[in-house]
Structure formats: C-alpha cells, structure tokens
C-alpha cells in the first residue's frame, strides 16, 4: 500500500471524540483500541498463570456491593493469600469488580475506569443487579445488564453475595484465566463500536473522549 492509503486508513481509525469541545480535543488521545494477539502458547500459558496468581483488583466501590469487598481484606477472609490485592489506580489493576447496580452516572465512570486499565483485564460482575437489573430492573436510572457496556468474565449472583461467594468467584476467574478463556480486552476492542453505541445511549453528558486511554 502506498503511503497515502496508510494515512487515510489511519485517519479512519482515529476516533472522532465528538463529545469534547473543540479546544479539548488535542488534550485527549484519539487512538482506537486494538486487539492484541496472544504470545506463543507456552509463554502465554505461563503468563496466564502469573496473571491468575496475582489478581490486583481496582479498589473502586461502584455500588452497594462494594461493602462486601472490605471483609475480604481483613483477617477473616484474607484474600491476600490468593495473591489478590486491592489497587488504587486502574493503571495497575487487572480486575474490575462491578459492585452491584450501576446507575447512569456510574456507568460513565465504570467505562472510563475500565478503559484505563491495561489489558489483559478482567471483570467480575457482583450481584443480581449487574446481571439483569435485579430489584432495579425497571428503574429509569440504572442499567440492567452491565455486559452491554463492558465485557464480563465472571458473574456472582445474589443480593448480596457473601464474601465467600466472592472468593469463589475469584477462584472461578482464576480457573478461567489459566484456561485462557478470559479475553475481555480483545473482545472489547473488536466490538468497540457496539459497546460505544450502547454506552452513549445511556450516558447523556458524554464529555469524555470515545476511548479513555
């Protein structure tokens, strides 16, 4: 391909960032996320093991379920022994726990934080509300299915699920990771436009770039 075409394609690949005012567009990256092919089989397997054994979850409580995260870190449940630890910044976390119902306002933050996590990244949807809306199924202000907005790896049903269930969920996630089944990052990149469309449908005051690097 000649240079002109490459440039043209690159330009098409750029995100429009239409939600931003003109003067702010230069402050945000407008690069589209791409899927990443895994490394060769054995290396990937090794890395998956490491990813599974060192699960750093993002310490954001996005809903009422976040209350169940706290006991995990205390001496009673002590998830540290499974290599699970909270992390205060999405840049360094690999697990995002959606703590229950997600209001329109929260979805925006969830999307933003999710996009800022570095892949491979995993999502645990906690509680019924994240699965089908739960008791808020007909609320005007909550979404019903979180997996319309970000890819989810493990669901933990219940209202509220107890910490034990959470630990079980983590273990399930570990198994899935080790098996190489958790590829939410690539899924999100490949179906980016679909996810974005869903997100933009519920988030009205979209003042972010289309993809939050």
């Amino acid at each position, binding site marked *: 391909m000649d240079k002109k075409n490459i440039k043209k394609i690159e330009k098409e690949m750029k995100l429009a960032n239409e939600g931003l005012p003109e003067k702010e567009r230069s402050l945000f990256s407008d690069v589209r996320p791409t899927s990443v092919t895994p490394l060769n089989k054995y290396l990937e397997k090794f890395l998956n093991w490491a990813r599974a054994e060192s699960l750093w979850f993002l310490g954001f409580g996005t809903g009422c379920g976040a209350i169940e995260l706290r006991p995990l870190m205390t001496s009673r449940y002590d998830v*540290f022994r499974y290599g699970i630890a909270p992390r205060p910044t999405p840049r*360094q976390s690999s697990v995002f726990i959606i703590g229950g119902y997600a209001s329109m306002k929260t979805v925006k933050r969830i999307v933003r934080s999710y996009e800022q996590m570095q892949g491979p990244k995993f999502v645990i949807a906690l509680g019924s509300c994240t699965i089908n809306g739960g008791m808020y199924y007909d609320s005007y202000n909550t979404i019903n299915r979180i997996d319309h907005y970000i890819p989810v790896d493990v669901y933990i049903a219940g209202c509220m699920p107890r910490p034990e269930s959470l630990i079980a969920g983590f273990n399930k996630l570990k198994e899935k990771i080790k098996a190489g089944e958790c590829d939410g990052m690539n899924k999100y990149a490949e179906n980016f436009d679909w996810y974005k469309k869903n997100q933009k449908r519920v988030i009205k005051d979209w003042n972010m770039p289309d993809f939050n690097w």
Partner: protein
Amino acid sequence: MDIMIKILYAVISVIVATVYGLTLGGVVQKIYARVHGRFGPPVWQPFIDIIKTHGKRVSISHGIMFYLGPVFRFAGGLGTYLFIPVIYGSVVFANFSMAGDLLLVMYFIFFGQLGMALGAGEGGHPYSPLGIARGLSQMSTFELPFSLAVIAVAIQYDSLNITTIVAAQQGSILNWTLFTNPFAVIAAMISLLGMNMHSPFSLVLAPQEIPIGPPVEMNSSFLAILQTNRGLFTAAKLVLFMNLFFGGATNLLIMIVKTFFIYLVSVIVGAAFPRFRPEQSFRFFLKWPTIIGIISIIFIVYF
C-alpha cells in the same frame, strides 16, 4: 577481559541482591499479615506480581521522560547497589565500589529518585507532584540526621571509603559502630525509617490520601521495573547500613541475617504506628534525630 569479569560479577551480585530484596519484601508482607492476624500472601508473591506486570499486553506512556523515569529509577537502584562493596573481602560482591566512596553512594540514591520524579511528573497526574513534593521534602529532612551520622562515622574511621569503614569494624562485635558510636547509629536508624517509607513515614505512597502518589500513572513494564527496583534498592540501603554501622558482612549469610534484622526495625515500627502528616514527619526528623546526630558528632570528636 578484566572488565568483562567485573561486569559478570556485577551481574551476579545484582541478581542475588534483587532476589534477596524481593524475597525480603515477601517476608515482610508475611510479617505484616501475621501482625494483622492474617496468613498473608506467599513469600514469592512479589515475583509473581513482577511477572504479571511485565506480562501486560498493552502499556501507555505519557512521553519520553515518563518512559525513562522508571529506567532512571532502576538505574539509581542499580548504581547505589553497585557502588557499595556488599561483602567484605569478596571479589564477586565488591561491585564497582572503587569508583567512589560513601558520598558517591549517598548521592547516587538521588539519581533514581530524581529520574523517577521527572518521569512521574510528565505523567501529568496531580497526585504525582504531590507525592514527589512530600517525598523530596521528607528526603531532605531525613538526610540531615543521616548525613550527620555519616559524618560521625567518617570522623570515627577517618575515611569515607566504605571498605575501610567495614575493615575497621572487623574483629569483634564491639568494634561495630553500633557500639563505638551508638548515637550515630540511632540517628541513622531513625533516618532509615524515613528512607524505607514505612509508616509512620509513608507519606509518598499514602494509598488513602494520594493513591500511591508518584507512580499513579505507571503501568505494565514501567511498574514492573519499579517493583524490581524496590527489591534491589531495599537491599542496597540495608547493605549500606550494615556496612556503616553493623560491621559489614564477611559472607552472604551474615549479610542476609544482618540486613534482615536491620529491616525488621523499620517493619516493626511500621506495623505499630499510624502515618504522620507531612509537616509532623518533617518536624520530627528535624528535631530528635538531628539532635542525636549532632550529639553523635560531639561524642566522637570529644570523647
């Protein structure tokens, strides 16, 4: 050819120190967990964490300085370590200590901190400069008692050469600076609390106030390098303290034992105390340890 062997030795030395430092980190986590009444992560958790972080598929960078920040940091750790003779009498662990003396080591510590500060600064996150401002300020305050202690040591042994200082402490346990000039050791050990940034002096990372401070934007391999450095740098500092105040080490085992106990001081204090506010921390360092440091100099000059 000589230089190649030298480099080979240095590589070995660094790897040993890094592995030791990371393991020590794991052990400390374990100790902390036990203090809390937990089991805690496995001792090797730091290694898994590093592998995982390196294993990230994507990373973001804010620019060239951001990219080089962790490199500076790790180079600082490496340098600090490499300019210290780790084991007295050992060729393998002598590192590049002939390039300079104690002052070089002390100033090389800044190398990594400065680089990291610049890298974090380019990240553009407000927490980074906040953390750095705290870190630099605290650093300036604990350097004062530490430097006083170092000066006391230099007076005592009439040398700034670490090997010479270690050599002077050989023979008997009573030759250790710990016993010959206890004030200097006290001042330096208090400084070490600050250096290790365990609570009550964990101002920089302070996860609850400024979520982890400077490296808030660091991700993937950048973070992994920082984690690696943490092991190495801890080891380097402990070795330095061991050399200056605790008679050095004649073999690896003694080094491990000694440094472990030196570190334990920080850990115990850290596990027992809550965090200072920044100005409390600064005032603390400028007050008691400084006075003790001055006493140590007076002690060594006049007694």
